[in-house]
């Protein structure tokens, strides 16, 4: 891995300020959640834009709604992004996606894995999530789950950080830390896209 810093800067100073290390420590499972049009995808792409400057990301597109043009507008370097389409295995797509992520992490191919689970109904198997967390820690990577509000497909014990996103204007978002094991819970930041 190219990164040696203990934490990953999100590229959003207001958000970084919430964490003692001025960024999210590596090895975390993060859930970004919000309602329809809340801005969660915009926030995610902003994070990816910053991360793909130095690292490689994998986007596991369960919802099949990833729009590379929008990612490029957000600043994501598409040459440093892999898109995984588990839909090609419709019978076992969740497991396929998780296994693929685990392999990418195990081989230190990527620095961040994104699970786009918007619209997904199936609860993720806890066995595979445990393994994923272990691999994320070992690879000093980040795993981000993008979910819809109240979807509850990520068992609450698994994510070490949950960011709930609310839109506060056409280009402003409020980010609430509704759960955190790495900093104080209940804090919030307003970020400009």
């Amino acid at each position, binding site marked *: 891995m190219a990164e040696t810093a203990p934490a990953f800067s999100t590229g959003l100073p207001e958000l970084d300020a919430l964490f003692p290390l001025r960024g999210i420590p590596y090895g975390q499972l993060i859930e970004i959640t*919000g*309602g*329809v*049009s*809340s*801005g*969660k*995808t*915009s926030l995610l*792409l*902003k994070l990816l834009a910053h991360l793909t400057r130095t690292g490689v990301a994998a986007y596991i597109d369960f*919802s*099949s*709604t*990833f*729009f*590379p*043009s*929008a*990612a*490029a*507008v*957000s600043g994501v370097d*598409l*040459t*440093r*992004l*892999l*898109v*995984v*389409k*588990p839909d*090609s*295995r419709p019978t076992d797509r969740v*497991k*396929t996606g*998780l*296994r*693929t992520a*685990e*392999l*990418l992490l*195990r*081989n230190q*191919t990527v620095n961040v894995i994104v699970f786009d689970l*918007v619209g997904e109904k199936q609860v993720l198997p*806890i*066995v*595979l999530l*445990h*393994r994923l*967390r*272990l691999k994320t820690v070992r690879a000093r990577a980040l795993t981000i789950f993008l979910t819809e509000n109240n979807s509850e497909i990520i068992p609450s014990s698994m994510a070490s950080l949950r960011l709930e996103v*609310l*839109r*506060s*204007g*056409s*280009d402003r978002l409020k980010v609430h830390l509704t759960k955190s094991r790495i900093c104080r819970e209940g804090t919030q930041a307003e970020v400009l*896209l």
Partner: protein
Amino acid sequence: MTGERVACLLAPDFPVAVCLRADPSLRLKPAALAENDFDAAPIIAVNHAASRAGLLPDMTLAQAGTLCPGLVVRVREITREIEESNAIFKKLQRFSPFVEETSPGKFFLDAAGLTLLHRSEAAFAARIIAAIRPLGYPVKVGIAKNRFVAETAARVSGAVPYTIIPSGRERTFLENLPVADLPLSPETRAMLHDLGLKTIGQLAAFPANEMTRRFGREGTALSRLARGDDTDATFSPAEPSDDELSNEIHLVSPIYTAGAVTSYVRQLLSPLLGALGKFSRGCGCVTIMLELDNHTQQNLPVTVERPTLSVSRFLRQLLPLLAGFKLSAGVTGIKVTIPEAATLLSEQLAFSSNEKISSPERTIDSDLIYVPQLCAAILPEQKFSLAPFSPRNTDRRPRTMEDRQPADGLRACVMGNVSGLRLLQPPRRIEITTTDSRLREAGIGRHRQPIRRYHGPWELSGGWWSVDFNRLYYEIQIGDDRSSSHRQLYLVFFERTSSRWFLQGIFD
């Protein structure tokens, strides 16, 4: 627990266990299992009662019948063995996402990290055994740092249902075991005996370079195994040589029966697949060439459903081929060839953390992973393509100015932020009610909702030379207008050619 851990589940004497499960009354009678019911057929295994009568594996049925007149002989049922093995395989998939079946009755599970769920490896092993026990097989479990030690631990565990070898204790565990527990060829076994090497510990103490000099690659691999280091021996990135992919036999007198041919194929195929396993590879197809005494040849390609190291799986496919194949003349020679070594169990991922892959497509199926590329197009859904991942196209950069401005057609968006657009593919049919050319209600989701605000239209048309399209794009907002947190912003279009409304994307 740190590092890689592998669990091996072994069903000892699996062919016999399958037979006994089908007919439990055989437990009380002297019984033997053979490949076929010819007098010259060798016995594969005997039960306890037959063993007490002096019967041993490798005796012919004629010899066994003489020693024990009341002997019950059962012919091995390969199909049933595979079915039963598949049932165990399915159960094991509940315990680990990576399960490999190297032969019916022998399974390897990636056990790294599972103590988070099962508290300890002992609890993990106990749960596996408890899950398999209802299937009726007395299984053994070994857990260690690598496959060889895990398998050996399972095999030598005796009355103990599971054995766990902590990382770093592999050599200590192996040192008192006989060298026969290593995967040896008969020639090597005889030479080791001549050298006075009786235990694995003695072999481990033997200089490695001397082992290589005397036994070649097999010596190198044995030396590593004896030291408890299975990594290179099992997950070697090297490819097997052509010599290791074919095996043949020339017969003094011709044979005329399918049973005899099958028996010889087993003898020829077993070492080939065993050698392939050392490279962590399998195969999905073998070619069997029969030389006939009328100076002709017959080729029989045998394929199985997935790459494997199981001889039985190939024999199951071979038997119907031979049944429908009339031997026009006696068979005087048999050659078994593996045309191509394949990745073992393609739906599974090899579980070696030491295998650093520079190209993930080696282990991830290429139909899963893509690199996004921008395209110059008018319609949003055509503005990008997903190319199958290859190291060559990861450095591809946009080449034209149009590529660099991928979302020009969408920059007119005023309510939603184009950077968060989620695109539906294909666009989803929706209902929108209009009055006097004004948008009123949208049927997105279960209910129709009033459209609070909208912007548009923007027209996109063209494509008369391929697919004609003429779209009027709108951004619409539904939901509570007072609270921005409840607004839902969508990109919709009206397709004039079909007079239908479609949902193109969601601003998020």
